[in-house]
C-alpha cells in the first residue's frame, strides 16, 4: 500500500519530465525559518531481559549543518530516571553500545527490564537548562510468527518469503523488519501496520522474488503499542514531506511530554531462514 502511495509523485513527475528537459526549473532561494528552541529528544526501548538504555539528544536548527559528523548532539549531565511500578532507578551517563542492533545510548543502568506485562514504566528527564520531560509505557505480549514459507518462482532461480502470524482479536499494531544476512544491514523491509483490515485473521507479510540460494533472511515481527505506531508513521510522513509538494507537513506524534521521542516496550518474535535448494 505504501508503495502505491509513493507512486503518485513519480507519476506526476514522469508526465512533466519533458517540461524539465533543457529548462532550468530549479533554483536556489533564501529562506528565513522561524526561530524555535531546541528540544530534548528521548528514545528508550524497553526490551525484556535487557538493561535500561536511553539516548538523550537535542533537536538542532534545521538550516545549521552539523559541525562534526561523528558526534551526536547529546545532552550531558541530565538526570534520567526510569521507574518500574514506582521504583525509581537513576541512569548513569556514559557510552552504551548495542553491537547486535548497531545502536548507541548515552544513559544506562544495569537494571534489567522485566518481562512482567503488568508492570508500568515511567521515564523522567531533567537537564541542566531546566527542561523536564516524562513519558509512561508498558510491555506488550509477543505475537508469535506462525511460519515462514519460502517460495520459488517458475524458473526456480529466485525466492520470496512469506511470514505468517495470527492477529489477536483486539486492536493491534505491528512493525515488520526484514534484514538480509545481518541485523545491522539496511533493512529490506521496515514498515508498521495496524490490523484494521485483518483484525483477528491469519495474516501474511510477503516479499518479491528478490532472494537467491544462500541468502539469510531475518524476520522480526514487533508487537507495538499505539504510541509507537503513530510515532513511526509520523516520523516517516515527516521524512517524506520534505521534498513532496503533495504532502501535508507531518507533525511528530509521540508520547514524550516536554520533548520529542518515544518511550516504549519492545516485544518481538524473530525467525531466521536460509534459502537452500
Amino acid at each position, binding site marked *: 500500500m505504501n508503495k502505491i502511495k509513493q507512486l503518485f509523485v513519480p507519476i506526476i513527475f514522469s508526465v512533466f519530465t519533458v517540461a524539465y528537459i533543457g529548462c532550468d526549473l530549479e533554483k536556489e532561494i533564501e529562506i528565513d525559518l522561524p526561530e524555535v528552541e531546541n528540544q530534548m529528544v528521548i528514545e528508550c526501548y524497553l526490551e525484556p531481559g535487557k538493561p535500561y538504555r536511553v539516548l538523550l539528544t537535542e533537536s538542532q536548527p534545521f538550516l545549521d549543518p552539523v559541525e562534526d559528523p561523528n558526534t551526536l548532539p547529546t545532552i550531558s549531565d541530565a538526570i534520567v530516571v526510569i521507574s518500574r511500578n514506582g521504583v525509581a532507578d537513576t541512569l548513569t551517563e556514559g557510552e552504551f553500545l548495542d553491537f547486535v542492533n548497531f545502536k548507541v545510548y548515552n544513559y544506562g543502568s544495569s537494571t534489567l527490564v522485566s518481562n512482567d506485562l503488568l508492570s508500568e514504566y515511567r521515564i523522567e528527564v531533567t537537564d541542566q537548562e531546566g527542561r523536564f520531560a516524562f513519558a509512561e509505557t508498558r510491555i506488550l505480549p509477543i505475537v508469535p510468527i506462525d511460519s515462514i514459507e519460502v517460495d520459488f518462482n517458475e524458473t526456480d532461480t529466485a525466492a520470496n518469503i512469506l511470514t505468517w502470524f495470527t492477529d489477536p482479536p483486539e486492536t493491534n499494531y505491528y512493525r515488520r523488519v526484514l534484514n538480509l544476512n545481518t541485523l545491522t544491514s539496511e*533493512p529490506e523491509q521496515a514498515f508498521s501496520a495496524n490490523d484494521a483490515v485483518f483484525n483477528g485473521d491469519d495474516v501474511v507479510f510477503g516479499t518479491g522474488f528478490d532472494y537467491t540460494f544462500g541468502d539469510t533472511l531475518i524476520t522480526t515481527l514487533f508487537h507495538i503499542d499505539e504510541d509507537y505506531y503513530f510515532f513511526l508513521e509520523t516520523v516517516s510522513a515527516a521524512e517524506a514531506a520534505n521534498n513532496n509538494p503533495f504532502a501535508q507537513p507531518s*507533525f511528530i506524534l509521540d508520547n514524550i511530554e516536554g520533548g520529542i521521542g518515544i518511550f516504549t516496550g519492545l516485544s518481538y518474535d524473530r525467525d531466521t531462514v536460509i534459502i537452500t535448494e
Partner: protein
Amino acid sequence: MKSIFSFLFFFFIGTSLCFAQNKDQVKPERYTMSGYIKDGATGETLLGATVYIKELETGTTTNEYGYYSVTVPPDSFTVKFAYIGFNDFEDRYLIKENITVNIELAPEAEELTEIVVKANSNREQVNSTQMSVDRLTTKQAKILPAIFGEVDIIKTLQLKPGVSSGGEGSSGIVVRGGGPDQNLIILDEAIVYNPNHLFGFFSTFNADAVKDVQLYKGGFPAQYGGRLSSVIDVRLKEGNRKKFSGSGGIGLISSRLTLEGPIVKDKGSFMFSGRRTYADLITRTINKANEDNPDFDKIPNYFFYDLNTKLNYDLGEKNRVFASGYFGRDKFSFRDDDINFDFDWGNTTTTARWNHVFDPKLFLNTTFTFSDYQYTINTEFDEFSFELTSGIRDYNLKADFYFAPTPQHNIRFGGNLTYHDFTVSRLEANIETEDEPLFASTSLLDGWEMSIYANDDFEVNDKLKINLGLRGSGFANQGTFYFGLEPRVSTKYSIKDNLSIKASFARMYQYIHLVSSSGASLPTDVWFPSTEKIKPQISDQLAVGFTLSIGEQFILSNEYYYKWQQRQIDFKDGADLFINPDLEQEFVFGRGYSYGTEIYLEKKEGKLTGWLGYTLAWTWREFPDISGGQRFHPRYDRRHDISIVMMYELHRKWTITGSWVYNTGNAYSLPASRAIIFEGPGVQPRIVNIYPERNSLRQPSYHRLDFGLVYKFFPRFGEADLTLSVYNALDRRNPYFIFFDIEETELGLPVSITPKQVSLFPVLPSLTFNFKF
C-alpha cells in the same frame, strides 16, 4: 421535522396565493406572454436573454431552459428581446389573451460575436438582485491563451476576482476562502465529483461541448445547495436544430471533434463531442522500440478522454425532453518485469429532463440525474495482486417550478431527493498460490440527501428589488438525521439608472465531505458522508457591494464579503487516509472564516474587450487539534490577487489576446528544526524534520503573462483558425514547491542544506488548429 417542511410548503404556496389575491384585488385582468428565445443560426436556447416591456419599464429574463414568461394587463406593448452577441429584436404585441411568442435572435456580425466576453447585459447586471456571480460563454475561453493550447473554462473562471486556482496549472478552484471540495460542480444538473484530468492540470469540461457556465460565489439562489463556497453550473450545448454542423481541433496534446445537427428540423437535435489525448501513443511506440534494450527504463503510459452527448426533442408546444451524458476516463499504466500497475479513474453523468409548460405562467423542469465517480488501482507484483476500488454514485430526482404571476414576481420552488452510494474502499489482495484472497475489505456507506426550496425575485418598486428564499435540507445516514434551514436573501437598490447597491446573505449546508490531505487534487480522494460523529459543514456569507454601468461598454463592481464556516474538517497528523476502514477516527473538526473585497472592471464590447479584477482577502482556519489550537492560514490563502485580461481584434482575421495574473504566494510549511531518531532495532538512524505551526511561511509571489494570437481563415467547408498560445511568456520561474537540497554524510547527517524552489512550467508555446463547418 414535519412542521419545518410544512412551513416551507406554505411559504411558497402562501406567497403565490398572496400574489394571486393581490392580482384579484388590484387588476383582475392580466394576460401572459411567454415562449422561448433561441439563437436564430442554430436553434440553441439562450439563457439569461432579456425581455423588456418599454411602456411598463419592466421585464424578465429567460430561465436556464431559454423560457420566459411575463404577465401584464391587457394592452398593446412594445417588447424588446436582447442578448449580447445577437441583434436586438423589437416589436409591438397586442396582449389581450395569453400569447406564445418564440423568438429567434440573429447573431451579430462575426467580428463582434467572437469578441463578446459576457452573456448578460449591463442593464441586467445593474438591475438584478443576483450578486457575486460570473457567467461565461465558451467563445471567450476559446480565444484566451491556454496551457498546452488546451482550452479550459475552469481556468478562465480562475481569472475572475474572488476565484483562485489550487496551484500552478491546476484546474481546481478556491472561491472566497472555501476549500477546493466546497464547490458544487454540476454538468447539465448532474454533480461532477472529480472535475479534473491529470491530477488537476486539466478540467473535464470540453469547451466545444459547453454552452454556458455560471459561477456563484455568494448570494446563492435557493435552488442550489450541498456545498459551502460556490456553485459552478455548466450547461451543455443542445445541438444545432437547423443543419448538420461540426467543429473540432488538433492540439499539442489532444484532439477533439464535435458533431451536431437536427433530428427533425426545428423540433429536435443531437450533439456528440469527444476529446482524447495522445501522449500514450508516443510512449507506447518508444517502449516497443526499446523492448530488447535492458538498459531502457520504460515510460508509463497515460491518456484521458471525454465523451459528451445530448439529445433534445420538442413534444408539441408544451413539452420538451432532453437526455445528456458525460463519460470521461483517465488511464495510467506501467509495465515492467517486476510490476504491472494500472490506475483508472473517471466520471460518468447522465441527465434526463422534461420541460413542461403547465400554463404560460407556470413552467416545470423535472430532472433525473445519475453521477458516478470511481477509481480502480490494480497492481500485480510477482505472485501478489492487489485491487482497490473506491468511489461515489448518486441517483437524483428533482423538480423545479418557475411561476411568474406578475412582472414584479418571479417565483421559483421545488425540491430534490438524492441517494448517495459511497464505496469508501473495496480492497482485495491475492496470492497465486492461494485460492482464497489473502485479505479482503469493503467499506460501503450510503445516505439520502433531500431538500425543498422556494424563492421570489420581487420587484418592490422601480428602485428596490428583493430576492427572498428559503431552503430546507436534510441528510439521513444509518439512523442519523440532520436538518438545516438555509435562508437566502439578496437585495438591490437602484440609486440611478446605471448604479445600484446590493447586499446578500446565504447560509449553506454541506453533508458530504472530501477526504483529501494533499495539496494536489488526487484521484484517490474519497467522498465521505456525514455520520453521527461527522456533522454537516455550515457556512454563512454576508456580502455588500455596488454595480455601476459606465456607458454601454464598461461595467464596474465592488463587493465586500465575510464568510463564517462551522464544523470544518481536517485530518489528524499522520492520518492514514488510504484504505482505512475506520476513516472517521482520522477527522478533526474546527472552524474557519474569510473576508475580503473584490473589484471588477469589465469592457464588454468593441475591438478591445477584457477585464481587470483585484481581490484583497484573508482566510483563516482554527482547529483545537492542529497547531495547538492557534489559527492558521490554509495553503490557498492569498492576500492579493490581480488579473488583467485583454482581447483585441486587430483585423477581421487577426485577434490578439493576453492575460496577466499576480497573486501572493501560497502559505506553506517547512521544518524549523531536526532531530536524529535511532528508531529501534533493525533499522538505521534517520534525520527527522520538525515543523513549527502549520503554514507559517509564504512562498514568493506568483505572476504570469500569457499571450495569444488567433488567425482566422475561411476555407470552403466553413471556418478555421490557427491559435498560438504562449503560456508564461516572460518565462518566469514561479514557485511550485520549495525543498531542501541536503548533502549528507554516510550516516545521513546534513553537512550542507540549500533551500531550492522548483517551478513547474517554463515558457510554453503551443499551436492549435480549430475548424468549424
